[in-house]
């Protein structure tokens, strides 16, 4: 399933094809003359303020699928990039409530419906008190799992490979390079326009990233 998600299409179909290799991912919007799908374009920036202001301009140009790569955290870059707030809390809330409800249903069905008569200290079979611990515990457990795995899924992880790993220059971003990569899947992506935008914002060494399948 190496990097099949680079062939464009909607967010959801990409996520599915990421996780299920036998489902054919949607076709890429652009190919090179060699027939390789285009992942995106990458530009290099000199200083942190440069990349910060470039991010603001790219955000204002309406791009959605792009990223800034830096070897250190840049405070406030999420605002410069116009990141929307994460949907993770809503996912966690729904799953946690389902977990808690499931825990209640499980215990209620066992002690009050399927096998009533297992008397403990003369307490009622359907007493809610002893259920509470397990309701709480399963609620917390499902919330924890939902946060971890939801976070990984929203980030498109885990994955075997990423097209950017094919670029030697990208690998240097962990040692001091400041990079911006705009994906070809972005609806606003246009080979010429995007390249010009990156140049205007001060990007240098602009290269096309191919996805060599």
């Amino acid at each position, binding site marked *: 399933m190496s990097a099949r998600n680079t062939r464009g299409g909607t967010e959801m179909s990409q996520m599915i094809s990421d996780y299920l290799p036998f489902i054919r991912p949607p076709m890429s919007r652009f190919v090179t003359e060699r027939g390789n799908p285009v992942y995106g374009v990458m530009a290099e920036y*000199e*200083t*942190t303020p440069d990349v910060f202001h470039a991010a603001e301009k790219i955000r204002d140009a309406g791009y959605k699928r792009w990223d800034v790569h830096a070897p250190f955290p840049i405070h406030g870059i999420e605002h410069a990039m116009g990141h929307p707030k994460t949907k993770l809390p809503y996912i966690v*809330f729904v799953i946690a409530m389902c977990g808690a409800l499931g825990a209640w249903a499980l215990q209620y069905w066992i002690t009050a419906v399927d096998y009533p008569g297992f008397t403990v*200290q003369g307490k009622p079979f359907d007493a809610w*008190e*002893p259920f*509470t611990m397990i309701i709480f515990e399963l609620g917390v457990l499902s919330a924890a799992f939902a946060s971890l795995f939801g976070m990984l899924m929203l980030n498109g992880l885990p994955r075997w490979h990423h097209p950017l790993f094919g670029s030697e220059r990208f690998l240097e971003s962990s040692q*001091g390079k400041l990079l911006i990569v705009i994906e070809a899947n972005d609806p606003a992506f246009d080979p010429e326009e995007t390249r010009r935008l990156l140049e205007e914002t001060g990007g240098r060494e602009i290269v096309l990233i191919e996805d060599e399948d």
Partner: protein
Amino acid sequence: MIRITSDYDPTVTVQPAPAVHGVGPEMTDDQYEQYLAKLAANEDLKGENVRLPAGAGAGLSRGLLALGIVLLALTLFGAFVHTPAHALASFEVGVFTVLACCLGSLFHVMLFQALNAYWPVTIRRQLENAAGLIWLPLLGMVVVVCIELFSSVTAGHGVLFRWLDAGAHESHLLEHKGGYLNLGFLLFRFVIYAVLWLFLARSMVSMSREQDATGDRMLTAAMRRRGTLGLLIFALSVAFASFDFLMSLDYRFFSTMWGVYFFAGAALSGVALCAVVCSVLRLTGRLTNVVGDEHFHDLGKLLFAFGACFWAYIAFSQYFLIWYGNLPEETAYFVYRKSGGWEYVSMLLVVAHFVVPFFLLITRKTKRNVLLLGLLGAYVLATEILDMIWIIRPMAGVRDPSISPVSWWLDVVAIGGVLAVFAGFLIREIGSAPLIPMKDPRLQKCLEHKNYV
């Protein structure tokens, strides 16, 4: 631009390091002078933004005090018209709610000082104002003790304290507890609680106000030491005070969770009161850019933690162990509150005190909204009153089963009276000093505070 310079400069000289005090941001005295000058130049920290004009709220304060005195006079009247037990129980609901507010505020002041916390600096003065009023509920408790004492001496039985009854010593259980539950020892303990709380509250408030005038940053270190020691004193004294005045209403009952239960109520009342006061101040145009959304967000987190989660955790833990253990002297407490109409109050308490605030406060939006958080603070305070009613009021019915629903107006006037007096004094207290600690070494950091999540 990222550059690494490693040039060797032969002109550099080596000097002894300047004296740095480990208070707040570590600074030399010169730097601290510059810091104070920077604060003095801040437009947000000037004039009416951080200080109520002279006489502001004086009319409201006087009105509330007058209202409170009228209502308390009505309570006294009700005690003679109906039963003293009912009037005293309702009065105690008010007193212990106010005590919870003051103790909770004192707890948070000491906690923030002990942890050297910087984000609550601008809200700390409102907590100090409430903590400084600890004498008011203590005065209420003096009234309670005097009434019980008077009743015990003249009539031979307590009003709500059944363990004061002359004939109660026929009870084998009380015979065993008599070494602790007797009037002399209660008075002795009460004096100790009063002295400790007054000392802690007064020292935290006066040192903070002294710093406003002098700018002496060593006071912050002194407050940190005092707060840390105070937390230890606070934990024991609050637990035992709650045993003496609330748990002993039914002398058969015992719960090792009780001290924590009362503490949970106190901690949430302190935060809730602070949220209400800060919200009112913000909505009337004060503290702009001083107590911002970020501070309200953190205040909301505390309100969520104490007002919903911690209280529910403690209350359920106490109930659950007693329910499972099924010992008669323990279960009587809950059996009584699950019958005779009190079962509806019990259910309301669970829903109103846990479910509603939990789901309302879990989102980021309510915590960052000044008006909503103020309303929720008032709501959480109301649930604390309900909790106190649930703890204290049933005992009036145990004492005197003849209490009729007609006399419910007594609850309203007694609780309302105590709260009105407290509110009147609190408004006066807020106006008597700047609304924030003006020269706290952590103030600048607090103004720049930001939540990244």
